[in-house]
């Protein structure tokens, strides 16, 4: 495995049907690197939930992935409306998704809790009106 692999994805906020495409691409990369299926699963869920959040709540953004011998690091950055109460947003079931977004299968309020559950480290920096950056790390050693 290469010492340090960096990947960058631009996430469009226009097209809901493409939400998840970057996560699917990363999943292929992780497979090619030969990572264990449980690590691939955790990274996939964490990034996919984050990617969808960027599309449905923040009109898109960027995702930077870094893979080294110790962990997979994800940085998801958007310039959307921000999250005013992060503790509340982290609660299972809390969602501000509109009815039309719900009809597409989102809005269970499980995305952020899923991200926390599947990452070993997670931090959210968010300023209302400025945007949100989510940092996650998944260690490669632990199953």
């Amino acid at each position, binding site marked *: 495995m290469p010492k340090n692999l960096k990947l960058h994805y631009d996430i469009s906020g226009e097209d809901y*049907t493409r939400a*998840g495409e970057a996560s699917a691409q990363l999943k292929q990369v992780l497979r090619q690197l030969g990572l264990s299926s449980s690590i691939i699963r955790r990274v996939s869920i964490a990034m*996919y939930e984050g990617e969808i959040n960027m599309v449905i709540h923040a009109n898109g953004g960027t995702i930077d992935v870094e893979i080294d011998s110790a962990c997979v690091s994800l940085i998801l950055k958007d310039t959307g409306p921000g999250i005013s109460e992060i503790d509340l947003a982290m609660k299972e079931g809390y969602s501000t998704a509109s009815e039309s977004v719900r009809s*597409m*299968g989102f809005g*269970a309020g499980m995305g952020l809790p899923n991200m926390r559950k599947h990452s070993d480290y997670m931090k959210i920096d968010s300023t209302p009106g400025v945007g949100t950056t989510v940092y996650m790390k998944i260690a490669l050693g632990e199953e």
Partner: protein
Amino acid sequence: MTVAEIVKVLDAKVISGEDLLDRDVHSACGSDLMSDVLAFVKDQSVLVTGLTNAQAVRTAEMMDIVCIVLVRGKTADSGMIDLARDRSVVVLQTEYSMFTACGLLYESGLRGGGGRANAKKFKAAL
């Protein structure tokens, strides 16, 4: 259980993935909310849902879901069918409701794969 057996049990029509019916399915999940699926689904599952969009296929792809069953005769939108073909996900359509479709699959031996079933397995292994 294979996808072909699911087709029989649910009297289903194959919308995409005619060549993938010999695939094995180990568990099932019924939901219209993708985050619920991401939170609870196990490996090599069948997803029973009323969602007919590409997002259901993307979720399937992320979770290694083998097969999506659309309930109540709902029609897959064209984006869903295209993506399912591209990503090798089987899409089936059944006239049964979500409740009945899940019940029929349960009756034929499929389980959710989470919580209680795992707890039993864990106890048996001790």
